């Protein structure tokens, strides 16, 4: 049968090689950068923080996509729902890495009794940071991080377990289907209170602890959502090229392409809304964030992010035929993932590193390691069950789906 996926040797070797590159770069970085000056030590930790949070958010968004689809009783996603399930079931892995890195940065990294990344850890009489200490303090940080990641990982595994239990359930039984709807409602609440509001403040916005923006969590959510959709699309097209997922057709790929297109526009909307209000009111404590990024040493990346994440998707993905062409959507998916990785880069780096930024072997190597880990762990999970969600009440609907 064509329903089982076995990891081809080439995929396994490539992903393991990427992981090896990541580990090698981490070791070399640990030796050279940690022995360097203040900025090199900060760079070592900051790149790990950037990548672990980015990959955690784009895997966790798969859990959100399943929850939203099952609450809306969307049939379009059922044809390839094993892919978001497999990504969601690996949230725990990226969560553990993120916990290790976040705790390392917050509690284990100090230069002269001062934390260069999370300044609020060591306010030393800074009035602004002391005013925020009810939220930005070590206990809250540890609590939020552990609770958030534990809940995401739990729901990711729970959704997959429910979906696999449906296969062996009695025929035409909808008990598990409705249980899934209830769990999805619960997850949306969790997700709204973590990813969509508080958690990005803790992990990312508090790097520039004096600055704040109420749009920030939506902005990171939009980035995560569009990259998460792109990851799902890459896996779907890969499985399709391997001759699997026969029930997935152009209509389903078209839907994923529409989401990539629409949420690129949504990202731009949120990104610009955050920018324009600050530009308009022109208050010094708010404009410092953009001063550094738009006019300072990061201006090249700033404009690159805008072109990659907005101009390219809107021009390339707007036409119907390009969303139905496997090459175009895969190319755009890779471009979008890289663009939003750059976007997260420009969120994290400027605060602590100032003009001492690099985009070279260490950054790319760590990114390769995480990408390899994502490919390997998700493919491993995909091999463990049938790719077709048998006995799912929406299976017929998804086969005859027209986008």
């Amino acid at each position, binding site marked *: 049968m064509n329903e089982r996926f076995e990891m081809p040797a080439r995929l396994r070797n490539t992903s393991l090689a990427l992981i090896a590159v990541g580990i090698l770069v981490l070791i070399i970085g640990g030796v050279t950068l940690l022995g360097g000056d203040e900025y090199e030590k900060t760079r070592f930790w900051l790149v790990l923080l950037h990548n672990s949070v980015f990959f955690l958010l784009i895997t966790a968004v798969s859990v959100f996509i399943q929850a939203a689809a099952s609450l809306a009783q969307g049939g379009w996603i059922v044809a390839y729902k094993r892919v978001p399930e497999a990504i969601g079931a690996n949230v725990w892995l990226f969560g553990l890495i993120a916990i290790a890195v976040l705790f390392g940065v917050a509690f284990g990294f100090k230069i002269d009794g001062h934390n260069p990344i999370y300044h609020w850890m060591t306010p030393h009489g800074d009035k602004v940071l002391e005013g925020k200490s009810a939220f930005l303090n070590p206990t809250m940080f540890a609590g939020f991080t552990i609770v958030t990641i534990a809940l995401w990982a739990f729901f990711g595994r729970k959704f997959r377990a429910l979906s696999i239990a449906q296969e062996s359930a009695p025929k035409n039984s909808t008990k598990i289907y409705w249980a899934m709807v209830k769990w999805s409602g619960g997850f949306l609440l969790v997700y709204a209170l973590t990813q969509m509001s508080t958690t990005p403040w803790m992990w990312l916005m508090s790097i520039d602890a004096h600055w704040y923006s109420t749009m920030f969590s939506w902005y990171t959510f939009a980035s995560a959502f569009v990259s998460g959709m792109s990851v799902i699309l890459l896996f779907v097209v890969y499985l399709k090229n391997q001759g699997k997922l026969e029930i997935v057709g152009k209509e389903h790929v078209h839907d994923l392409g529409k989401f990539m297109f629409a949420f690129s526009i949504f990202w731009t909307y949120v990104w*610009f809304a955050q*920018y*324009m209000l600050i*530009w*308009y009111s*022109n208050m010094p404590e708010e404009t410092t964030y953009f001063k550094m990024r738009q006019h300072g040493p990061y201006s090249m990346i700033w404009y690159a992010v805008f072109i990659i994440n907005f101009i390219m998707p809107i021009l390339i993905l*707007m036409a*119907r035929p390009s969303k139905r062409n496997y090459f175009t959507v895969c190319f755009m998916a890779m471009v979008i993932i890289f663009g939003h990785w750059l976007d997260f880069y420009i969120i994290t780096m400027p605060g602590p590193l100032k003009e001492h930024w690099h985009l070279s072997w260490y950054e790319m190597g760590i990114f390769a390691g995480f990408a390899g880990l994502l490919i390997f762990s998700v493919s491993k999970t995909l091999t463990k069950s049938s790719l077709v969600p048998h006995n799912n009440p929406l299976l017929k609907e998804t086969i005859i789906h*027209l986008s």
Partner: protein
Amino acid sequence: MAIKKFAVACYDDEAVLFPAVKSVRHSGYKLHDVYTPFAVHGLDVAMGHKETDLHVAGFIYGITGTSTAVGFMSWIFTSDWPINYGGKPHWSLPAFIPITFELTVLFAAVGMVLTFCYLNQIMPGVKKHVFHPRQSDDYFVMAIELNDHTNEQEVLNFLKGTGAVETSVQTAESEWWYGRWDKKEAYELA
């Protein structure tokens, strides 16, 4: 404006309509249109319509809206009536973006609605010939265009053979017209 002769067939079931549409096209008759009480999925494909170009029109309207907004605001704020707003430059693009976005959406939306109405020949106050009063109730009505050389009886027999519950031959205006319903009777008499 053209008055033409039509053979009209009524069906009471979607499942009969689809094979009938196919055999009409297969036999080489000129299909005028099919009127249904609700949107029947896949009927456009069965009738041989190609994918609509409405979205291309929408793109052109949108671009028109974008350039109208940017051009107009640029002209106002730089040469017609330059005002200093909070020390910002006269030509400050970020402030123009929301209005540009709104005008793009407005032009695209209104333009596409009007184009859609034109393509489908629907508009308030505009009339079209109704082939059968039950075409908005429970009948699927198919109209075939006839010419002077067609054998009417042969066509009607053919349509009955495809499962039509009611057939007729009508002379009617084939396009839309603006005005009163009673003008239609003048056409029918002609």
